[in-house]
């Protein structure tokens, strides 16, 4: 007797994989359920319409998008240098720019404060010259968020540049294309999907940033209080507001990730 097999060939996971994978899904699903169960659905709209939430939402949107833009403008050339140039101390530079990946964000924030704070090594002359104070301003938020999120972009783009077949760049050069044209018309399109992935990762890290922001930029509503900071404050004072804010962050993150990921996969 033969069992009916599905006509479409599909890889069959070992049973233990199915069990562990299901466990993994539950692990990620449970907190979300906890959140949804406790959500004060009737008051949700008024909670989300409060000044605190709107201010935090706007600030988070601005800071995370700014972080992605700055990370792309600075991070792509940095990744290119790390991937393509051989120079003494390259490992050291790579370690330095990737350090924020493993450094506790609070430490990063403190370091930023000592360097760029009002009394900082660079911050003090900067203030004397321009009157600009980074901490406790929206600029501080952008600096802190960019500091912790840019490494994701550098890591992804450097990997893509290393894996890319650089013979294509040679082919473009042989056709008379200068270095910038080669980069713009060949290199960039070829690493496009990875760059997009790097930008999404950078944004994901930026939108959730807490430690460096609170340490370097502070926690002033309407000035430096991003969504994660607002959640933390609300947990102490207004639990319903905290839940509403959390739900908002889950919704934003899932929407952006799902939408962008689909787009990015289609473009492959």
């Amino acid at each position, binding site marked *: 007797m033969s069992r009916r097999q599905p006509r479409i060939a599909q890889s069959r996971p070992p049973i233990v994989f199915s069990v562990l994978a299901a466990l993994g899904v539950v692990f990620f699903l449970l907190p979300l359920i906890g959140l949804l169960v406790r959500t004060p659905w009737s008051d949700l709209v008024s909670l989300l319409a409060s000044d605190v939430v709107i201010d935090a939402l706007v600030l988070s949107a601005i800071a995370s998008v700014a972080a992605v833009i700055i990370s792309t403008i600075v991070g792509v050339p940095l990744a290119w240098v790390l991937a393509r140039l051989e120079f003494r101390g390259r490992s050291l530079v790579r370690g330095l720019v990737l350090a924020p990946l493993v450094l506790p964000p609070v430490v990063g924030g403190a370091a930023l404060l000592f360097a760029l704070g009002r009394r900082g090594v660079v911050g003090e002359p900067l203030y004397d010259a321009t009157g600009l104070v980074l901490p406790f301003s929206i600029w501080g938020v952008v600096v802190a968020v960019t500091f912790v999120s840019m490494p994701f972009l550098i890591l992804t783009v450097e990997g893509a540049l290393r894996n890319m077949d650089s013979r294509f760049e040679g082919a473009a050069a*042989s056709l*008379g294309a200068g270095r910038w044209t080669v980069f713009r018309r060949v290199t960039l399109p070829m690493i496009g999907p990875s760059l997009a992935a790097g930008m999404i990762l950078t944004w994901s890290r930026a939108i959730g940033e807490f430690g460096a922001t609170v340490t370097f930029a502070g926690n002033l509503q309407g000035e430096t209080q991003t969504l994660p900071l607002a959640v933390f404050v609300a947990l102490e004072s207004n639990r319903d507001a905290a839940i509403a804010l959390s739900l908002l962050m889950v919704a934003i993150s899932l929407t952006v990730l799902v939408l962008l990921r689909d787009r990015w996969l289609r473009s492959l």
Partner: protein
Amino acid sequence: MTLDVSITVSRGGEFTLEMSIRIEAGETVALLGPNGAGKSTAVASLAGLLPIDEGRIVLGNRVLDDPAEGVFVPPEEREIGVVFQDYLLFGHLTVAENVAFGLRSQKEEPDAVDAKTAVWLERLSLARLADTKARDLSGGQAQKVALARALIIDPELLLLDEPMAALDATTRVELRRDLGEHLSEFPGPRLLITHDPTEAFLLADEINVIEEGRITQVGSADDIRLRPRTRYIADLAGSNLLVGNASSGVVTVGTHVLHVADTAIGGSVLATIHPRAVSVHRQHPEGSPRNVWKTTIVRIEHFGDRVRLQTGEPLALAVEVTPAAVDALGLELGSDVWLSVKATEIGVEPG
């Protein structure tokens, strides 16, 4: 316009390429050798992707690379049209965009770019593929796009790196003739890099055999085929390649007539006979072979465990026998011998 190359290039410490080549305008020279012989290094050096260590590369009246003089022209200023191995088309661009790439990069007027692109697409029968993404092309189509992309910039040298290697056998035979035509239309010097002796024999005026970074023999197809200088070349050159005309099972090569098994094929053909498929006799042989003729031995060369003979009129052939056979038959220079080849041992393909 002449290409004059005399270079030494080290790669990775272990490997060194030492090569001198001179190609006149309108001449096709093949660099024939196995993988790892230094062919890619030669391409990279000429294209400007790998600076040479010693020597000079001169194209026309321009010095492209000369470390002693401190001259190095970067690839984008060399004006060398390269058809790269695997073609290296830009997959994210369309066929037309690939072909137009060089002109656009050199900041030509958009109208002029479009007009020239249309001409080249037409010339290589690519017009209907103009809007196809390069990544969706077949091997044969990709080769044509690569050729158009290289030729449209009106280069001073045409460099073809294994232009047939990415094609299947059928397409290869078809495109070889086309490629020959495009090569002959190109006015400057042409360098064909290949590991395939047939390709070199058919497309090049002069063949440079390269082994382990050194050029071991330079000559015409007949020089290489009949008078190989190393064991490797004898093996590489492998078969006797004869250009002739076929009709109903008979191939005429010069004045000689060969009977072949394929009776369907007609017109211009390429007949191949392996040197070991030819039997040597002192008297007219008995038996069934359809092809039997009398000739003279004009050259004898020993390559270890085999001996390579070259025969004279009416058909210059390379024949391989064992040293024992040479002794048994008492073969020496000028010996009169009978040769026989079975019709089934002669390969025939459209040429």
